[in-house]
């Protein structure tokens, strides 16, 4: 404990403005820790300068990220959240299995926390692992209301480390998120500066010949889709942060050579997927979404918005760059692991931006054998005007690392590598299946499940106690992180064998995947895409367990 805590001491939040109003640059920050079982959190605005421009964020206890909350498994915790904003706030404990009225979703769990009031969350923490918390009110998560939550396992960690660091990744904008949302509605490709140009066409003709290039372009053109649409909001708008520090600020985590260091990596961004690696070090992944897995050693992994991975590294006597490039390769969050202060390592160049292929679009390549494919059933509403495409072939497996990570020469984690210890929480097979399609219209910037926006849909009904299978089919060209509140999503492979227990499951374009859910949590729950603007645009359902 002492060793682990040492690194936290004396490290304030480097993004705060100093008393003179000038930003404090270069300070290595880590969110202060608060240790339970009793917590006091104050939500208020905070002047910050994360890019050099003075802006107003929403912070907890004057910090971005919010303080890391450290709890002990089995404790009954009390968290008093005081709202000093002029608008409603809320805090959702992402990944914690707690009663519905403690889950923190205004309108479903409770009435929100009104300005000037204090709401007391009280619940028993039965699980252990790395989680996080964030606002579930409008765009407050985008402007700073997110923090790590670490539950220490009773009896000690299963995978021992000598030291640990929380790495909370996020995306910061100097603009009002309301403006970003409105901009996406006005011109949905506004932030994409990685489109294919006439010069790319000429290059492709040289490489693949004119007929193939033309045929490929015509296919995309006929679908009215863009093969470069990997992120709705890019590094053009965002500055990617690691523990609230921009890449130049270089957040640094210290270690002693020979130590085993646990990194608790949380994607607390609003709209960004990160591909994370530490050049020079193998990453031994020991947990995902707070749940211990059989260790698997990789060079790199993709972390979807709201996902969590714990990795253990064994650094030598050198500095190492922690490199988290955005999926669309428009920027990166960066930090350093160093044995001594001030050391840095080379920052790798961004990888080349990937181009979506027909497989990613759930479309077949010419000449492929269609005979073995089961037909895909689309809901009637998917034929409506708010859905721009429907997959006809689902070829992307769980062993696919995802767009931009295929065949990159590195060992990249895939979902098929995950094996959560202890197996599923419920040995029963699913008694029924709910198939949900992830749908949308990129050009109109409308997102939905089964072609129905939240406002047009009725709640999904689960019967208390049932074990059911949810199958997600991605009918869009984007990768979506889908988060079910209140109940675990127990990912299974194509044959139905258990892989991993997760709270947020990313579904790649052109992919169908399934997870089992035990509906043992009475109440009303949120179920949504964790890309914040997708959620706001309608990719949200209420789940009612009764």
């Amino acid at each position: 404990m002492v060793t682990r805590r040492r690194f936290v001491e004396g490290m304030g939040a480097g993004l705060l403005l100093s008393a003179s109003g000038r930003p404090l640059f270069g300070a290595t920050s880590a969110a202060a820790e608060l240790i339970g079982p009793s917590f006091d959190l104050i939500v208020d605005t905070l002047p910050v300068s994360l890019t050099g421009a003075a802006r107003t964020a929403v912070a907890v206890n004057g910090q971005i990220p919010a303080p890391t909350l450290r709890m002990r498994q089995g404790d009954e915790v009390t968290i008093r959240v005081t709202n000093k904003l002029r608008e409603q706030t809320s805090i959702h404990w992402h990944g914690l299995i707690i009663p519905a009225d403690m889950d923190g979703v205004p309108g479903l769990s409770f009435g929100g926390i009104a300005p000037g009031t204090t709401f007391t969350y009280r619940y028993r923490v039965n699980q252990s692992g790395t989680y996080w918390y964030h606002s579930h009110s409008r765009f407050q998560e985008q402007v700073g209301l997110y923090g790590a939550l670490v539950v220490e396992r009773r009896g000690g960690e299963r995978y021992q480390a000598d030291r640990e660091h929380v790495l909370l990744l996020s995306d910061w904008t100097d603009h009002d998120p309301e403006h970003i949302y409105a901009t996406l509605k006005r011109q949905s490709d506004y932030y994409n500066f990685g489109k294919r140009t006439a010069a790319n066409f000429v290059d492709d003709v040289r490489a693949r010949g004119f007929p193939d290039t033309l045929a490929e372009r015509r296919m995309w053109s006929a679908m009215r889709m863009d093969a470069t649409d990997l992120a709705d909001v890019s590094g053009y708008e965002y500055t990617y942060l690691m523990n609230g520090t921009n890449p130049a600020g270089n957040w640094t985590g210290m270690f002693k050579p020979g130590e085993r260091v646990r990194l608790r990596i949380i994607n607390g961004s609003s709209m960004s997927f990160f591909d994370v690696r530490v050049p020079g070090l193998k990453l031994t992944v020991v947990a995902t979404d707070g749940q211990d897995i059989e260790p698997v050693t990789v060079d790199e992994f993709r972390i979807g918005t709201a996902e969590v991975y714990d990795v253990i590294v064994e650094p030598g006597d050198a500095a190492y760059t922690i490199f988290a490039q955005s999926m669309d390769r428009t920027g990166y969050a960066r930090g350093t692991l160093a044995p001594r202060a001030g050391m840095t390592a080379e920052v790798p160049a961004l990888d080349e931006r990937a181009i979506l292929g027909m497989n990613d679009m759930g479309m077949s390549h010419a000449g492929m054998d269609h005979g073995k494919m089961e037909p895909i059933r689309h809901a009637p509403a998917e034929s409506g005007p708010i859905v721009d495409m429907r997959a006809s072939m689902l070829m992307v497996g769980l062993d696919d690392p995802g767009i931009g990570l295929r065949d990159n020469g590195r060992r990249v984690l895939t979902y098929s590598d995950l094996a959560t210890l202890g197996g599923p929480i419920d040995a029963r097979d699913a008694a029924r299946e709910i198939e949900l399609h992830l749908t949308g219209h990129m050009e109109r910037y409308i997102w939905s499940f089964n072609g129905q926006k939240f406002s047009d849909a009725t709640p999904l009904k689960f019967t208390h106690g049932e074990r059911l299978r949810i199958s997600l089919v991605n009918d869009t060209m984007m990768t979506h992180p889908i988060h079910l509140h209140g109940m675990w999503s127990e990912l299974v492979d194509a044959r139905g064998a258990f892989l991993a227990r997760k709270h947020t499951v990313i579904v790649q374009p052109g992919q169908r995947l399934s997870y089992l859910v035990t509906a043992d949590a009475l109440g009303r729950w949120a179920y949504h895409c964790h890309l914040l603007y997708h959620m706001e645009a309608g990719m949200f359902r209420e789940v009612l367990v009764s």
Partner: protein
Amino acid sequence: MKRQPSFIAALACASLARAQGQSQTEHVPPDPPQTHVHDMSYREMVEMMGMDDRRRFGKVMFDRLEWQDADDGSRYAWDARAWYGGDYHKVWLEAEGDRTENATQESRLEAGWERIISAWWSVRAGLRRDAGEGPARDWAGVGFTGLAPGFIDTRAILYLGDDGRSALRMTFEGDLLFTQRLVLQPKLELDGFGKDDPEKQIGSGLSSLEFGLRLRYEWRREFAPYLGLSWTGHFGETADLREAAGDDSDELTWLAGVRAWF
């Protein structure tokens, strides 16, 4: 290969626990909620959730604010569009026209409503007033707008006016990227009329075709200066009427302008 035996002790521990059948899931179902949110309307819930997928947005776009090097001197042209609404329904306003030093030559002001009907198309209905040279003409129009394959922004509207007049107007425009910010916009506009309207120098049939190429530099997405050229041709009776009045039946002009939106 994929499981690296770096943590032998830990693995052994975990495996032992599994072998003993010890539950490692740590899963305890949550207690039922003690308090419930009261039943409320969608509006109320949206207010409380801060989620609003029915929110209305608006956009004002000056697609063309330009100077043209016309045969008869400088000409100033505009083409502005605005919309406001939700995902399904929008109201819209369009203003297009041009003027020389002393007079507005052509002006079209149009407003109406549109609704999405399929993934790529909307129907629209509106009222239009043509001003400029000659008497004003009023129209009621219906048609569709949308995105044709190839990302071609398409409009086709059929109009009915006074005295049995009818008109068809179709526009097509697209974007061709040279770089991420240097964009060529080809634009084609076709106008046709059901019967002669000599006072407006219009003959029945396809009366005019305008083809423009505008090369813009998106300094920001919202603000792009451009250079271009535009060719306008008049046909049939329209061309004859223009020639009789001493105007050319076709014209090629250089132009420069800005495209801006908010």
